[in-house]
């Protein structure tokens, strides 16, 4: 939930900046065709810098549009792996996938650098099945992330693995797309 809002916020910012830039350029083009090449280009660079550090919109042409795809985890993230705070799991799986390695390494580094920093790891499941059994399954996921972080050098006492089971779905719905978004562990500062 936390992450979703954050990502959305970034995306909204990107869109807002994009819109601002587009507005400027059209005005400038009408009024001063010569300057339009430079001023909007600077603007475009600034806009891309703010919106697209995730690597999606580095074009300099005036007509370029940076696509922000919210369905891709981490898209539009402005500040690298530390800003990623959700680990998704396959169906009936408790294995932390390799793709989350850079993200967890970054968090491990930050936690190791500051031993007073604490983090909650919240495990979640999709909505199918019993509430108590799902609570335990979510716990199994958060413990898996905890073990990974400890192996990466974080002190056990800096972390607490908990679970919400199926009680806090990130995305309601009965299809696999929704289920996949719900099978997750969220990393939260304590």
């Amino acid at each position, binding site marked *: 939930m936390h992450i979703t809002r954050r990502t959305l916020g970034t995306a909204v910012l990107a869109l807002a900046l994009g819109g601002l830039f587009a507005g400027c350029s059209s005005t400038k083009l009408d009024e001063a065709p010569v300057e339009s090449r430079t001023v909007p280009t600077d603007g475009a660079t600034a806009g891309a810098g703010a919106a697209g550090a995730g690597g999606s919109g580095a074009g300099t042409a005036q007509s370029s549009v940076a696509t922000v795809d919210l369905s891709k985890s981490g898209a539009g993230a402005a500040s690298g792996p530390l800003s990623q705070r959700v680990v998704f799991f396959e169906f009936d799986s408790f294995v932390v996938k390799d793709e989350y390695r850079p993200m967890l390494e970054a968090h491990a580094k930050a936690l190791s650098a500051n031993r007073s920093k604490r983090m*909650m790891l*919240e495990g979640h499941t999709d909505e199918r*099945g019993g509430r108590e059994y799902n609570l335990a399954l979510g*716990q*199994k996921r958060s413990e898996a992330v905890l073990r990974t972080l400890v192996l990466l050098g974080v002190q056990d006492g800096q972390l*607490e*693995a*908990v*679970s919400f089971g199926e009680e806090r779905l990130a995305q309601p719905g009965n299809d696999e797309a929704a289920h996949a978004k719900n099978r997750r562990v969220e990393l939260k500062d304590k």
Partner: protein
Amino acid sequence: MQGPLLAVDQKTQPVSVIRRTRPASSPPSWQRRRFVGALAAAAAAPAAAQFRVEITGIGGTQIPLAIATFRDEDKAPVPVSAIVRADLQRSGLFRMVDAPGAFDEISRINMAEWRGRGADALAVGSVSRLADGRFDVRFKLWDLVKGEELVGQSHAALPADMRLAAHRIADSIYQNLTGERGVFSTRIAYVTRAGNRFQLHVTDADGEGGQIALASPDPIISPAWAPNGKELAYVSFESQKAVVWLQDIASGKRNMLANFRGSNSAPAWSPDGRELALTLSRDAVAQLYLMSRDGGAPRRITNSQAIDTEPVFTPDGRQIYFVSDRGGGPQVYRMPAGGGNAERVTFSGNYNISPAISPDGRTLAYVTRQGGAFKVMVQEVAGGSPAAITDTSDDESPSFAPNGRLLVYTSRAQGRDVLMTTTLDGKIKSRLLTTGADMREPAWGPFGR
């Protein structure tokens, strides 16, 4: 006329409940029941109209019973005879026979005429307002087959206790006609969710007359009644993790029982009320522990490399049934209550959870997954094949009535979680009052209030 009424009467002598009409000046003790504070106001129920029972299915042997509308019951805050009728219908043991006309407990009854309508028994009664603001509810039950009065009672009840008075009358009729104790005056706890508002409710066994024991912006799950019916244990996520709380129902006083590192969940009371079994993740992902109801150090009673959860004591307190996925998928197991060798109990299907044991210890109810569907199953503990008793596909959380004749469980209808009761043979089902919110996690309370 060898009706079921006769057969039942031969089997069981009517017991102590039978009382002749007594003066209103000796009120029974139950009417002194205290009421939960502030939120109770919400329970000032919008009387008659909302009342209905949705029954599906048809039972085998049903006693044909007529219940006349009580004289002057429209002066009471609740529709007394309608509540009594609905209670008895929900039990699956009675078939309601129309009872036109005006009668009360002192009317002369023409037995032959009522038998001609097909009734084996008839209940009549009246409601009158007492000078102190209470209501005097009187009723009489006639055995039309034997041509005799079975019971006559008078209850003086506060206006707020009128629903309870009606349930007591239903219990009396049930016991006199079946020889078994009725559960209509017991209570059910359940959780509602509307948006991000979670509420733990305590209601009459028909789902009505509800009062809110806990309201929270965070999830609440797994309510469990103390055997004395005065306290609830439950899991609340209010501190952003699963913590087990105990709460006194009448006063609202509550305290944390288990708030260890990780998750704390699935509380179950021992039959003597002194201990709780629960699931903690402090030493491993999910293992079972015993704790004193007064807190203190938990004692671990399972040692598996798997998930062990959802403990429930047998009524004799000697064994604990629980769910474990030590064999792969989740299955129901049982073991000695103090820990020890666990024995697998469910074998069909690869996902069996949420065990409940009947009050006589003979029947196990649980939820099984069949394909993508979740169904309530019932099987004899002594051995026997499991039987599906629902035809719905999203069932959860079965809980036995204290007389073992009904189960309450969560199902899904029109996109909402709803509470259903069913007889153990699955033949008579009824949906409890719907509120527009999702209703879930039902727990049927013990006898007595």
